[in-house]
């Protein structure tokens, strides 16, 4: 028994077990939950948050936090809709949104690495800045983005799988590869674990910091394009509060907020837990007020269990 639990802990299976338990419970409570159509439905619904949370994982492992994700998403989405309206090709619009996100994220990184501003404060500033910029650009109105090729990004299918799910799966794999199989990723762990030690052993902490925020921004840009495509319009208030869902997914996935440990696969599980809860409580017709309370309780339980494990070392 003890061996098994130790193994589970070593491979950080806690979140996954939690997800499976929640799924079993929901399957027992509703015959509408565990159907192929609903599973795809959930997968599509969690795509956006998963993308943001994957970028957030890089940031949190490096010991930082990014509050500006929702605003950068809205900004990139609005500019993408504007570009589409001026007749630019779908592929280029997608690239454009990603570049806008990358630029926004890089700005965060520069402020934090070279401007020496605490991540919380820096990204709080850019969160407000990009929200303002979005409102200025959109004049506070949704910008329509109706174009068949473009709308296929968020609303289409590749075979039976919704396109956003495929894009997200590819991004999760790439992120996992960069973080766990490349030097640039290993350095993120080093910086988050012990910055001084990392610097002494030759890691350029400033580079790593700019890198993680740039990754987060890139994910926001991509998510912004997908959301705009799915809603056939760029909403000026899009992404409000999404930073909290992204952080929640990372935390549920077992990544520690103090930095230095964690991973994108756990984050994927965390995002799925949130998505499955939202969908399941919807299907069970639980009032939305209770849904929020339940979500909060689940996050607290996860963190409590995580802390108990951490305390054991």
């Amino acid at each position, binding site marked *: 028994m003890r061996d098994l639990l130790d193994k589970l802990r070593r491979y950080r299976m806690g979140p996954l077990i939690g997800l499976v338990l929640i799924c079993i*419970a929901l399957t027992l409570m509703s015959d509408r939950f565990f159907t192929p159509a609903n599973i795809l439905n959930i997968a599509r619904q969690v795509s956006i948050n998963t993308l943001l949370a994957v970028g957030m994982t890089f940031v949190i492992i490096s010991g930082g936090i990014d509050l500006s994700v929702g605003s950068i998403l809205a900004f990139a989405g609005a500019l993408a809709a504007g570009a589409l309206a001026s007749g630019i090709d779908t592929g280029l619009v997608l690239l454009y949104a990603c570049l806008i996100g990358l630029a926004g994220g890089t700005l965060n990184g520069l402020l934090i690495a070279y401007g020496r501003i605490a991540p919380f404060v820096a990204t709080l500033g850019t969160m407000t800045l990009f929200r303002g910029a979005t409102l200025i650009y959109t*004049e*506070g109105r949704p910008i329509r983005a109706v174009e068949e090729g473009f709308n296929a990004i968020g609303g289409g299918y590749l075979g039976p799988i919704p396109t956003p799910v495929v894009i997200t799966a590819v991004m999760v794999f790439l992120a996992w590869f960069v973080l766990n199989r490349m030097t640039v990723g290993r350095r993120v762990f080093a910086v988050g674990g012990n910055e001084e030690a990392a610097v002494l052993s030759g890691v350029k902490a400033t580079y790593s910091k700019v890198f993680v925020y740039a990754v987060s921004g890139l994910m926001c840009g991509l998510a912004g394009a997908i959301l705009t495509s*799915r*809603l*056939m319009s760029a909403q000026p208030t899009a992404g409000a*509060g999404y930073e909290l869902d992204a952080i929640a997914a990372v935390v549920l996935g077992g990544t520690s907020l103090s930095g230095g440990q964690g991973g994108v696969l756990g984050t994927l599980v965390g995002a799925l837990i949130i998505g499955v809860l939202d969908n399941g*409580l919807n299907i069970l017709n639980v009032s939305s007020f209770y849904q929020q309370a339940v979500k909060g309780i689940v996050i607290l339980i996860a963190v409590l*269990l995580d802390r108990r494990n951490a305390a054991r070392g």
Partner: protein
Amino acid sequence: MKRYLKAASLVVGSLFIVGMLAGCSGSKEPPKPAEKPADSTKQMTVGIALSTLNNPFFVDMRDGAQAAADKIGAKLIVMDAQDDASKQVSQVENLIQQKVDIILLNPTDSDGLVAAVKEANKANIPVITLDRSVSGGDVISHIASDNVSGGKLAADFVIKSLNGKGKVAELEGIAGTSAARDRGQGFHSLIDSEKEIKVVAKQPADFNRSKGMTVMENILQSQPDLQAVFCHNDEMALGALQALQAAKKNVILVGFDGGADAVKAVQEGKMSATVAQQPKLIGEIGVQTAEKVVKKEKVEAKIPVALKLITKQ
């Protein structure tokens, strides 16, 4: 071992809490096929997707729908999107998964919900829109107050109260919502033709009470000699009222919606008037229309719901 028992009891305890919450949230479990009374008529299930339940107006709409559903013995499934278009798309998808007979949609945004309406069309579930329309997909009927004529009612009242001369401020709703657009348009269509009346300030306060207060405070700094204020909804008007009372200003204050708080404020002479919508009636007519649609009866494509100006009598 003790540790695991503790952890397990924590999980079980919290699941118990969640269960209790879900249980007392007033949602009845769907009757299992086995327990169904052997009557041939299937109970009609209506899904209602509301833009937010943080606003008494939409709570009234839900209550009206609930009362009408109870009357005809239909089951009502309520969704609350918290003013987020993307969340609402997910909730409509979840209603489609539950195979409801008909969806009453009160969209957070006209463009953003087109994809969701199209999905309902694909699943052959009829859609009726409430209060706001959608700009695409097949909607069988649109039930709403005539906001433009409501704006005119407000303008007419302001012009008469000021004897055609004075300075007016306007607190606008969330930019980009059709309600804000139409109310503003109706209001300006009469006010702008008055030579002696000037709209000296026009600021969005997002249909929100606390924002209404701060925006009003700011406007009073620049325009201390205002004589009238028109707000696109009651929540903002009640916020503005706080600011006006604090500044000891007694001006003509007109709200919009006719919610309980505002009507009380009008009776007490704190507000001059409110253009009353009848959200309960919108919800009620929504469910009645839904019943007609499910019974394959003909319904009108547009069903206007009357507005009335409430003043202190």
